[in-house]
């Protein structure tokens, strides 16, 4: 059973079996506008919470997406290399950014559930 968490940096994590799939929220993609490039991480890269995991680039600007928890990249969404606009059209689905093996599941307790995130963006 997957559980979905949210961060105040407008990311979502879907956690199942110790692996989190991470993406940006619909609110975030709307703020960024049309994406033209996603700089994806390499598999095996170890990240500490707050490290830049991915850079998403819109027509106008580049924005960092941070690791919401500690862990190791197990997969990046290679489809985005040819179609970065998937992040705009399906931010919480086919537009996911990376998967990571969680180093410390207790960090999840500091994140928001969907109701709290909705309250956060108002």
């Amino acid at each position: 059973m997957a559980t979905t968490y949210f961060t105040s940096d407008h990311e979502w994590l879907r956690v199942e079996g110790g692996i989190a799939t991470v993406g940006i929220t619909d609110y975030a993609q709307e703020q960024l506008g049309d994406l033209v490039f996603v700089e994806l991480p390499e598999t095996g890269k170890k990240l500490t919470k707050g490290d830049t995991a991915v850079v998403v680039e819109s027509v106008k600007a580049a924005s960092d997406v941070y690791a919401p928890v500690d862990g190791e990249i197990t997969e990046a969404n290679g489809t985005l290399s040819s179609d970065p606009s998937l992040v705009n059209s399906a931010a919480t689905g086919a537009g996911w950014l990376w998967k990571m093996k969680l180093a410390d599941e207790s960090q999840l307790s500091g994140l928001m559930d969907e109701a709290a995130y909705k309250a956060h963006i108002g």
Partner: protein
Amino acid sequence: MTGDDTRHLPLEDIHVTAGARFGAFAGWSMPLTYPAGVMKEHLHTREQAGLFDISHMKLFEVSGPEAVALLNRACPLDAGALQISQSKLSFFLNEAGGILDDLIVTRLGDNRFVVVANAGNAFADEKHLRALAADFDARVEPLDRVFLAIQGPEAWAALSRAGIETGSLLFMHGVEPRKNWFMSRSGYTGEDGFEIGLPEADARDLVAKLLGDERVLWIGLAARDSLRLEAGLCLHGQDITPETDPASAALMWAIPKDIRASGAFIGADALRAAVERGPAQKRVGLKPEGRQPVRGGAALFDADGNPAGQVTSGGFGPSAGHPVAMGYVSTPLAKPGTRVFADVRGTKIPVDISSLPFTPHRYRKG
């Protein structure tokens, strides 16, 4: 709000109703995008007609018996050689030949001109021009206008449907079609189009008529930037600054030959010396390889890893279909096809020097 000096467009309510997302630019709260989004707004402008609120830019009227002499002092320009209704790109230079601002000067009468200045420099430009005017029998009057641009192949037809005929007006010419209106066939997109300064009440009426035309969409500052970058047009403060002169900026075409040789404009001696020396760096188009945009501020290196210059503007070109940028490189490298490398977050991205513009200009010249 106390301490908030942000300036607001006279038509802000219309942009709010249109669903604009606002952001700060040159001290103004400006529409960055509308619900269509930057990509669609950009492409729509090239295919049909885009409407831009550019009221952050400033119009000045320069008039009086010595208006020509004042402009010839202020700008590397032969103001007296302009035909009535003719417009010309020019500059305010500092004594070192650096570009304080780029401007469009249009002659409206024997002794009357309109000058269009950039938003971020408007206050400084006014002060500069007024100080110079003290030595001449000429006056400088800032005009209180809403300033709109309508750009794209259908711009003339949309204006015609709105009751404004543009028929005989050619690129880089401007007229006064109605009382307190100034309309020029010019723009910042590379497309055929118009810029219209007019009183607020008239502007509200014109905007309502134009938006009733399905060919016309509001376009935000984000697409304005990607359109001008594809068209190879400079943004003052980024691509040209008080530290760059027209020679290194590859803008000498805007300065008539006899003025280069003998003009008495501010900065003339320094500019002549710079031309004589030859610029150490030149402004060029830059085409990054692949899909990753290279942004303003990125350092450029040659094939051996030596510093080669820097990117001043960069992003994605929706019509070009690839990243586009411009910047400055050492003069020996400033040839189309030369490969340099941009440092983007520690990765060296291959970038080819490219001729400008990235998308062909489609001006109505005759």
